[in-house]
């Protein structure tokens, strides 16, 4: 089973989005949230992402990182650089954070591959809410 790391500038946003995604993924899909600076401000921390990835990799086949905005992507990329070979089991997704994490949780529950999860996050950009 693949896991998901929700990475937002806001700790509260990350936790909330992870909570919504977990509702779809249920107890079997490993989902974690990262965000905010050490002193409670807005931002992301390479150290925190690294620790979360190491934890998720210990209980998931692979991990899809779903970041919010630009510098969260840089933080994730830097953490992957430090992870070295284990980064082969991690991908960074390019799509809307809430809808993407939500759809990826469903895909993970259905046994989707890491590439498959990344693809649904990209597709989530076109998700229509109003019929």
């Amino acid at each position, binding site marked *: 089973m693949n896991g998901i790391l929700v990475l937002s500038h806001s700790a509260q946003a990350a936790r909330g989005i992870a909570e919504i995604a977990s509702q779809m993924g249920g107890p079997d899909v490993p989902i974690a949230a990262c965000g905010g*600076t*050490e*002193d409670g*401000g*807005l*931002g*992301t*921390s*390479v*150290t*925190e992402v690294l620790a979360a990835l190491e934890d998720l990799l210990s209980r998931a086949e692979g991990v899809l990182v779903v970041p919010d*905005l*630009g*510098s969260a992507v*840089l*933080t994730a*990329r*830097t953490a992957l*650089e430090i992870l070295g070979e284990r980064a082969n089991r991690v991908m960074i997704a390019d799509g809307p954070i809430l809808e993407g994490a939500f759809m990826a949780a469903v895909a993970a529950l259905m046994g989707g591959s890491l590439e498959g999860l990344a693809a649904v996050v990209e597709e989530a950009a076109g998700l229509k809410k109003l019929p």
Partner: protein
Amino acid sequence: MKLDIQGVIKALDAVGRSLAENKDYLTELDSAIGDADHGINMNRGFQKVHDRLTAGSYADLGAVLKDVGMTLMGSVGGASGPLYGTMFMKMSSRLAGREELDTPSLAEAVEEGLKGIVALGRANLQDKTMVDSLTPAVEALKRAASEGLPLEAALESAVEAARTGMESTIPLVARKGRASYLGERSAGHQDPGATSVFLILSAILETAREETA
């Protein structure tokens, strides 16, 4: 002249003081075109660096700069955390085993740091980023190294090149980072990241001057 391990730690402390003094200035630049956190973030990061370096003991420059890089990655918060963190980590690998910083080793290390920043952030010249002041500074350092200039003179030319690069960001339209969402409205403002590069180099130059005085 060269900077030894204590000299480099002094220079990094000077960087921390300069970023503390310029915290509001950087934040003001960032509030015009970004998320108004660059001054706060850089100040927090380098205060943590100060604490870490004060508590540590170091056998070579590589170990000093590795601690700087890891601390910035964990504590800065914005894009400058991974970017400056990567820069110092790349510099640290170039300076492993070295106990003194001279012009050639500084030029090599900063060039390696710039490569790391470009690989991570994928910014080109004139995207209105830190790359616009760091690239000319690296070129100045390499020129100084090939001319055999001492560290202080090399840093002087790097600071001047960084200043010109920093000022060149004013008319540019941002193509990377938070400012790029503003499009044309980002023109007319100096880039905060290009400015912090200039401030950091200036603080290192001041330390080099004091150490030779």
